[in-house]
């Protein structure tokens, strides 16, 4: 009996008719070179190079795959190219925004006193002087930071109870009654309210209630609540809905009253989702400009009282610094401050998101043995 040794082959018979693993890289290199060559003919720019190369890469890889591997594989590669391409296109603006804000905002942020001083007393002559002498830019965003944090906090304190209780009513008590259906409909309508309308509503409301020209942080907070509540209701409602009915029944079967079941079983089970919903709602309103301009006005000084006097906020600070530079002849320092404020705003939103993830992790239903 002879033992047949396995035939030494370079490639398995099972992988016959496949492109080698490095094929996409070859095509990519060729596409990049060809793309550069084509772009050189009509005038080179990076965006066009990327676009042309991507198209060449897709055509080349799909054609090669079709020739060697057959139609099914070629379609697979085409789909992969489209998916990856869409992902890159979606990512492009995000990366671009973060890059631009970082580059333009960092000089502002690292200026000493930027985060700890207000614009009180900073006039155009200071800006002119700093441009002429090359000294540091005076003035900062402390007042705007205080305003944004206080207004957003107050808006959250108003919106979360209202929104969460509405969601509890819809899920636990609504039973698809006429009232529940009406609330759902109006919440959907509220989701689409333009933010300036919310601002005008709040301003008009307080003008009628307190007196004409009432502009305080609280008025702005009410305007932001109008924008936040529907988001909180919607996300909390979805989270409460996915709590399994079995848990409610388990609690009822232990002789637990309905409201206790909701407070101690349903909401804790859904709290991580509710917390991220609330954070998203905050992130949605923290950058609102128009409603704050018409409700809280604009201040250059520190105002720690959310219930009295005009208040600055980061978005309105950016808006006015760009639109009405402190020194009209030298807008550079104003623009630097505006970019710095934009960076701070993005960092705030990012911290909020991280906080939401932390909350979600702390409250998440526990697993493990």
């Amino acid at each position, binding site marked *: 009996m002879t033992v047949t040794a396995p035939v030494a082959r370079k490639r398995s018979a099972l992988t016959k008719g496949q492109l080698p693993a490095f094929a996409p890289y070859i095509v990519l290199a060729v596409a990049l070179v060809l793309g550069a060559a084509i772009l050189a003919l009509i005038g080179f720019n990076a965006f066009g190079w990327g676009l042309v190369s991507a198209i060449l890469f897709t055509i080349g890889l799909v054609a090669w795959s079709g020739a060697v591997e057959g139609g099914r594989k070629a379609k697979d590669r085409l789909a992969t190219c489209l998916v990856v391409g869409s992902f890159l296109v979606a990512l492009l603006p995000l990366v671009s925004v973060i890059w631009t804000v970082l580059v333009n905002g960092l000089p502002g942020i690292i200026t000493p006193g930027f985060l700890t001083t207000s614009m009180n007393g900073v006039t155009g002559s200071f800006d002119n002087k700093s441009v002429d002498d090359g000294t540091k830019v005076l003035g900062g965003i402390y007042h705007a930071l205080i305003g944004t944090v206080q207004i957003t906090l107050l808006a959250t304190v108003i919106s979360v109870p209202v929104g969460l209780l509405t969601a509890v009513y819809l899920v636990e008590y609504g*039973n698809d009654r006429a009232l529940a259906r009406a609330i759902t409909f109006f919440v959907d309508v509220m989701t689409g309210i333009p933010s300036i309308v919310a601002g005008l509503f709040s301003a008009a409301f307080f003008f009628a209630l307190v007196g004409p020209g009432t502009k305080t942080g609280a008025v702005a907070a009410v305007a932001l609540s109008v924008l936040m509540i529907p988001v909180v209701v919607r996300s909390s409602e979805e989270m409460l809905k996915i709590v*399994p009915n*079995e*848990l*409610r*029944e*388990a*609690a*009822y*079967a*232990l*002789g*637990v*009253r309905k409201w*206790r*079941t909701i407070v*101690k*079983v349903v909401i*804790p*089970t859904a709290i991580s989702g509710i917390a991220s919903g609330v954070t998203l709602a905050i992130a949605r309103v923290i950058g609102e400009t128009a409603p704050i301009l018409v409700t809280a006005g604009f201040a250059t000084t520190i105002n720690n009282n959310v219930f009295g006097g005009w208040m600055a906020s980061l978005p309105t600070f950016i808006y006015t610094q760009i639109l009405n530079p402190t020194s009209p002849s030298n807008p550079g320092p104003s623009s630097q401050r505006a970019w710095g404020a934009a960076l701070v705003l993005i960092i705030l939103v990012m911290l909020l998101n991280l906080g939401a993830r932390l909350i979600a992790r702390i*409250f998440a*239903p*526990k*697993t*493990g*043995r």
Partner: protein
Amino acid sequence: MSKRIDVKDLNVYYGNFLAVEGVNINIEAKSVTAFIGPSGCGKSTFLRTLNRMHEVLPGARVEGEVLLDGDNLYGHGVDPVTVRTQVGMVFQRPNPFPTMSIRDNVLAGVKLNNKKITKGAADALVEKSLRGANLWNEVKDRLEKPGSGLSGGQQQRLCIARAIAVEPQVILMDEPCSALDPISTLAVEDLINELKDEYTVVIVTHNMQQAARVSDKTAFFNIAGTGKPGKLIEFADTTTIFNNPSQKATEDYVSGRFG
């Protein structure tokens, strides 16, 4: 610590749909009663009327009387919450509270109702209930771990421990073993045998051997056809139901010649 249940002419509705019709049954205290019958015949629906869990579903209602030691559960002004503290329930799928530890799951009936309990009394209650559910030895070293980390059989016994921790008069079990393997099933069945010394146990099961093994009396439910109400066909000692039933339908069902 157990009460008898007497049901008189009970009709169960979902909205206008009559799901179970004309049930009369007398369940003795400190006994195990099994409900058997084909799917959709209303055994679970009927079981849920015994602690007013039925009405949790929108549009569900009942007509007739369910007497717990002579007191009508559906009498005027009876609070369903009071009923449920006396008649506990274990569900088909194990449903421990995912946000709570094993210990907190056992104490759920106490803690969720904000009753004051000292730590010593709580520890004693946890141990007693878990021992009662044959789970103490398996979990005594990890009481602070989440209940959802247990195996399916352990979770179901945890749910039984949770149910007996509120010290009910009656325990209802809705197919408690249908999601469990044979070994866990055996553990739960042993447990049911022990529970009947102290509690009145009513169990719905699809497993006729199980009904024969654990129950003193068996009730056979059947349905005439789709859209027709389920009915109690026969209620007798378990040995009678399985060996010498008086109804043809019962005999067909228990011998597997159904339909």
